[in-house]
């Protein structure tokens, strides 16, 4: 479904990504893990089109999209959420989610401005579909008309997932969807992710630090460290890979050393 081939991305001297290659198979959950600064978000940024990799390719269904503009990739059905919330803060929950439907609606400024007629029909169809597939599904009914800025963090994360879902994506990129959430919110989110996969067969890429969640959800795990891909495979095989243990223990060991030093 989505293939990354030998991707390489650097910022000045820093190599954020170096020879990263994997395939996210259709309908599966592929987890991307690695210590802080490993390049996980950078990987998402080249898949969604914010950065162009200096080398390598990104293939969507075997078509090369490496140089495609970010907004065009939405038409292919690539959706994402951000590590730090990126909601439209001046809007209500409902309006945020409606933006997910942008690519599927047709009305331009002229039909939008007159409203009655095709624009109204389209808006009502979108509303009904969003209510069914997003608001009911993610249990957002009680806050649909609330401005997003006043919601607690956990709910904002869920609204952002809802906005991505409203795009009816083929590929969904989730950047740390449960970071900063409590146990209950984390469990809810894990359940939603599994439900999405089951209900729509969406291909999901998941960046997550919560190892328990990764091991439970992922069909495949890709491990990055300092931009390099050090392992990939099933959750079990990755867990027992010495390079992975080294990377995680290594960072832990240096962290402890620096703690002791201070």
């Amino acid at each position, binding site marked *: 479904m989505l293939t990354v081939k030998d991707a390489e991305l650097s910022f000045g001297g820093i190599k954020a990504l170096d020879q990263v290659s994997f395939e996210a198979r259709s309908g599966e959950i592929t987890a991307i893990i690695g210590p802080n600064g490993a390049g996980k978000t950078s990987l998402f940024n080249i898949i*969604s*089109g*914010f950065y162009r990799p200096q080398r390598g390719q990104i293939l969507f269904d075997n078509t090369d999209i490496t140089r495609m*503009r*970010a*907004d*065009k990739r*939405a*038409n292919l059905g690539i*959706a*994402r959420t*951000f590590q730090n919330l*990126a*909601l*439209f*803060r*001046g*809007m209500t929950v409902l*309006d945020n989610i*409606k*933006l*997910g*439907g*942008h*690519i599927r*609606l047709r*009305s*331009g*400024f002229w039909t*939008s*401005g*007159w*409203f009655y007629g095709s*624009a*109204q029909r*389209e*808006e*009502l169809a979108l*509303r*009904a579909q969003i*209510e069914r597939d997003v608001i009911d599904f993610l249990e957002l009914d009680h806050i649909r008309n609330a401005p997003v800025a006043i919601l607690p963090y956990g709910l904002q994360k869920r609204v952002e997932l809802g*906005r991505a879902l409203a*795009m009816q994506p083929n590929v969904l990129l989730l950047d740390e969807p449960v970071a900063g959430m409590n146990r209950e919110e984390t469990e809810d989110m894990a359940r939603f992710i599994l439900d999405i996969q089951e209900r729509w067969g969406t291909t999901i890429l998941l960046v997550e630090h919560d190892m328990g969640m990764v091991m439970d959800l992922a069909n495949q795990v890709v491990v990055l460290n300092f931009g390099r891909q050090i392992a990939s495979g099933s959750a079990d095989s990755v867990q027992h890979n010495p390079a992975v243990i080294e990377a995680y223990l290594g960072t832990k060991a240096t962290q402890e050393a620096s703690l002791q030093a201070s």
Partner: protein
Amino acid sequence: MITGNYKTRYQDDESIWNNWAKRWGFALSIVFLVVFPFVADNYMLLLAGQIAIFIIAVAGLNVLVGYTGLMSLGHGAFFAIGAYTAVAIHHEWPGTFPLITLVVSILVAAAFGVLFGLPALRVKGLYLAVATLSANFIVLFFIREHWFEEWTGGVRGTETPNAVFFGVELVSQQAKYFMIAPIMVIMLLFAQNLFRTRFGRALIAIRDKDYSAEIMGISLYSYKLKSFAISAGYCGAAGCLWAYFFPAILPEDFGLNMSITLLVCLVAGGMGRTLGPIFGTMLILLVPEMLKVIVSMVTDGDAMAQRYFSPMRDIVFGLMIIGFLIFEPMGLVNIWDRFWRFLSRWPFAK
């Protein structure tokens, strides 16, 4: 306590008039607009026409600055383009049907909007404000240029035509009001509709988080330029009506001064809100007039005293705007919102 905001169909929830307060407010405003010209004298009609024209221009600026989050200090230029396009059309084809002139003025201004909006593809904020500033000077330069004098009247300005509808020439203030007011209402409704549907939502998304908007499939290039086109088109419409409304125009009427006045009206009223341009324009255009009345009452026609009091007017007006920015940075609409919040909870809470 205002209750009864209860609906059983999405259609009702998605309508513009989704509660009774809005429905009645709109109905009353229409009644006011219809009755006003019959009770107002010529001076009040002159003010009303001017305010209505400015409201259109400020509503256009609101599309760009308030809703798309792009700064502009050049909208006076689009206003000028609208006005001079109308004059030029009547110079070439006297007696052109006014609505055709209006549409052409809108289109020409919109095209210039796209041209002067090009910097928005690269820069934002203050840089964009400075880039758009040039529109004032470039456009006025060409209007003053003697090659175009035949159509623009050059530095000396030009007389403007009256609108003629099916052989009826609109000469009186009252007749002109009846052309301007409906156009204002339609253009305000159009803008209001825009921002509750796909197109306008995309603009607001760009304002709130541009990279998120891009991920949703919104092309920043094309939407930013379209936003410039629409807002310049509104100013073009205002310019065209201005040419019909006043007997003559001068290049100086439209320069940087007007660009800033439009922005001040918008900020005072409230950016990114439907009622913002209406409240803001009324405030900014009416307060100086009221101060004039007050000064003439205080001085009682004494020319000497008037000489001292007149500069005070500008100072008071300036202080008022500064006070506004400090105490009500969200504009007059915010006061309006607080009033309705209070009313809708009364008597249970403040």
